[in-house]
C-alpha cells in the first residue's frame, strides 16, 4: 500500500514538474506547481512529517502560490513568445542535466543500503516534537527568521513603492 501511494504521488509530482517547465503560460505553470506541492505534502505524510505536510499545504500551496498568481494577474503576463535561439542552449543544457540526473541517481542508489525502508508510522513528527526542538535547540535560528521576515516585508514595501 505504501509503495502504491508513493508511486502514485511521485508520478503526479514528476508529471506536474515537467508540465511546469513545458507550459508557456505562467498561470498553467503556477497550477502545475500547486500539483507538485500537494503531492509532496502527501509524500511528507508518508515519511511521517505531519507538521511539515500541513505547513507545506498552508505556506507553499496556499500563501506563496497566491502571491505568484496575484503577481501574474497583476502584470497581465501573457504566453512566452516562441524562443528563437533556445535550441542551441537546450542542446547544451539538456545532456548536461541528464548527466547530472544519472550521476545523482547512481550515487543515491549505490550509497544507500536497500534495507532502509520507509515504514509508515514508524517515525512520526508532530507539532509537539517540532515545537520542543524549535524552542530549545534551534531558538536562535528561529529568532533570526523573525528578523529575516521583517526585513523581507520592509524590502518588499520599499521595492514596490510608486517611485524608485
Amino acid at each position, binding site marked *: 500500500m505504501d509503495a502504491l501511494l508513493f508511486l502514485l504521488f511521485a508520478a503526479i509530482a514528476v508529471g506536474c514538474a515537467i508540465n511546469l517547465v513545458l507550459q508557456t503560460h505562467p498561470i498553467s505553470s503556477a497550477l502545475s506547481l500547486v500539483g507538485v506541492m500537494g503531492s509532496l505534502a502527501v509524500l511528507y505524510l508518508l*515519511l511521517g512529517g505531519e507538521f511539515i505536510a500541513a505547513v507545506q499545504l498552508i505556506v507553499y500551496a496556499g500563501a506563496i502560490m497566491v502571491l505568484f498568481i496575484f503577481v501574474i494577474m497583476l502584470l497581465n503576463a501573457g504566453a512566452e513568445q516562441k524562443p528563437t535561439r533556445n535550441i542551441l542552449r537546450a542542446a547544451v543544457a539538456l545532456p548536461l*542535466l541528464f548527466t547530472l540526473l544519472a550521476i545523482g541517481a547512481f550515487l543515491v542508489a549505490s550509497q544507500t543500503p536497500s534495507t532502509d525502508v520507509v515504514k509508515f508510522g514508524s517515525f512520526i513528527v508532530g507539532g509537539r516534537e517540532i515545537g520542543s526542538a524549535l524552542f530549545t535547540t534551534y531558538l536562535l535560528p528561529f529568532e533570526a527568521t523573525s528578523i529575516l521576515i521583517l526585513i523581507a516585508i520592509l524590502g518588499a514595501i520599499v521595492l514596490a513603492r510608486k517611485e524608485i
Partner: protein
Amino acid sequence: MPELPIALPAHVPLSWYLILSVILFVVGAAGFLLRRNIITVFMCIELMLNAVNLTFIAFSHQLKQVDGHIFSFFVMVVAAAEAAVGLAIILTVFKNRSTLEVDEVSSMKL
C-alpha cells in the same frame, strides 16, 4: 483487494524518495536554464527548494531525528521571504522596462 500484475514491495526503500528528489531538482534546474519568463524561472527555483526539502525529510526519517524537519521548516520560511522580495523585484522590473523576459533585463552587462 485484487493482486497487482507486478510485485510491489510492501515498503518503499529510502532511495526511491532520494531519486524522486533528484528528478525534481533536475527538472527545476532545466526549467531555470531554459525558460525566459522571469516568473517561470522563479517557480523553478521554488521547485528546486521543494526537492531539497524532500531530501531533508527523507534523511530525517532514516536517522530518526527531528532536525531535518526543522531545517525544511527554515527553508520554507526563507522561501516565503524570498518570494515576497523577488516578486516585488519582478514588479519593479516590469514597471521600469515593461518586459518579463530575462534576456531583456541586461543593464548590468558590460
